[in-house]
């Protein structure tokens, strides 16, 4: 039974005992658990989900990747292209905003956006709120969040030196960025 493909609206028979937590792709109506996606229901930890590989819009706590498209003294505008590891179709990017107070966890009042991001940088962040009508609010205030790819003025891709600096391998010049520390280090 467990490997059967479910269709939207189809009721899911649950084993006796405590009801599992319902994850994505399932809903409960009138005491009956039903599927809302085409797929196979599986347990992920303690919750029952129908996993989807298709892209979905960002939600709070989604890990997103995006490109910096515009900078202003108060915020950096990001074009989100990957949500929770799933790339969005071309041309269907979402807009995100990193405000100065969301760049890093400490010394928030000393943040200068120009010393943290540049246009074209690829940034890893976490969505903190759905934001306003135009954009999602993103934070990089964590060690593993920040710029993960950037090109220098000379056009070479730079290597991180510290959490606030990157070096250009061509000219050896140091540029300021809020770098992400890779989780494996």
């Amino acid at each position, binding site marked *: 039974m467990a490997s059967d493909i479910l*269709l939207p609206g189809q009721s899911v028979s649950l084993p006796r005992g405590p009801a599992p937590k319902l994850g994505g792709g399932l809903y409960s109506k009138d005491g009956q658990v*039903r599927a809302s996606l085409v797929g196979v229901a599986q347990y992920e930890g303690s919750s029952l989900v129908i996993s989807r590989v*298709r892209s979905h*819009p960002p939600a709070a706590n989604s890990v997103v990747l995006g490109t910096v498209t515009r900078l202003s003294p108060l915020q950096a505008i990001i074009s989100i292209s990957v949500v929770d590891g799933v790339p969005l*179709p071309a041309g269907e990017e*979402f807009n995100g905003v990193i405000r100065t107070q969301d760049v890093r966890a400490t010394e928030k009042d000393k943040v200068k956006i120009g010393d943290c991001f540049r246009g074209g940088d690829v940034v890893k962040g976490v969505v903190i709120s*759905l934001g306003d009508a135009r954009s999602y609010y993103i934070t990089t205030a964590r060690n593993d969040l920040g710029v993960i790819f950037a090109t220098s003025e000379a056009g070479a891709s730079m290597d991180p030196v510290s959490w606030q600096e990157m070096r250009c391998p061509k000219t050896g010049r140091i540029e300021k960025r809020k770098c992400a520390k890779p989780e494996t280090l």
Partner: protein
Amino acid sequence: MAQSANDRRRINGPEESFPPVFDDDDEDMKLKTQRSRAPGDIRPIFLQPGLISQANGSAYIETEKTKIACAVYGPRQSKTTTYSEKGRLNVEVKFTPFSCTRRRAPMRDAEDRSIGVSIHQAIVSSIRLELFPKSTIDVFITIIENDGIEGCIASGSLAASTALADAGIEMLGLVASCSAAIVGDDIQLDPSEAEARASSGTLILACMPALDSITSIWQSGQMSAELSLKCMEQCHERCIDIHSIVAQSLLEHRRSN
């Protein structure tokens, strides 16, 4: 869109065009209005999900002379500037110029829009829009061949629901839809254009058979209360059969991928 009557990028056909007239046309018309199937039977349905590769999800439906392609894009960020907690569903219907007996100018008119509104109505309550804040889901329906507005709305809703399921958009259930026409005192299900023209009233019912709930009823023309209730009952019964067609096509498509 007012200027697109003189759209220079298109090859504009003559303003007025007529189908050729043949000698046996009258006889032909008589044949057309005569139904070849029982009043309670519907035209055979061919349904294929995932035909348009660049769309998030798509479906193609064919019921004899009604041919409809449907593509679903999104959820993408809403272009409107107002914040909305729920997602928006946007349904656009287009006729191909060769879809009707008379040539159709490639412009949006009142008919596309009313079909779009009916299809929107039929499927909107099946989608869990509360899961898509600030987003829009776009459904584009192209009517390749048209054989009656009622059939177009019913098949269009069916194709749209299949395409949404194919796109992996969370729904409460699959929508099935069926139309009926009153000809004389009879109820004829799934009328073609000629049959609908000969009828005194029509009814389109859309429902989610899995949840046993109705999403929309659209009635036009003249119909007694008793007959319209009977129509709904018959349509609802037929929708359960149609639902199994949708389910089968989605399962087959899923297994083949």
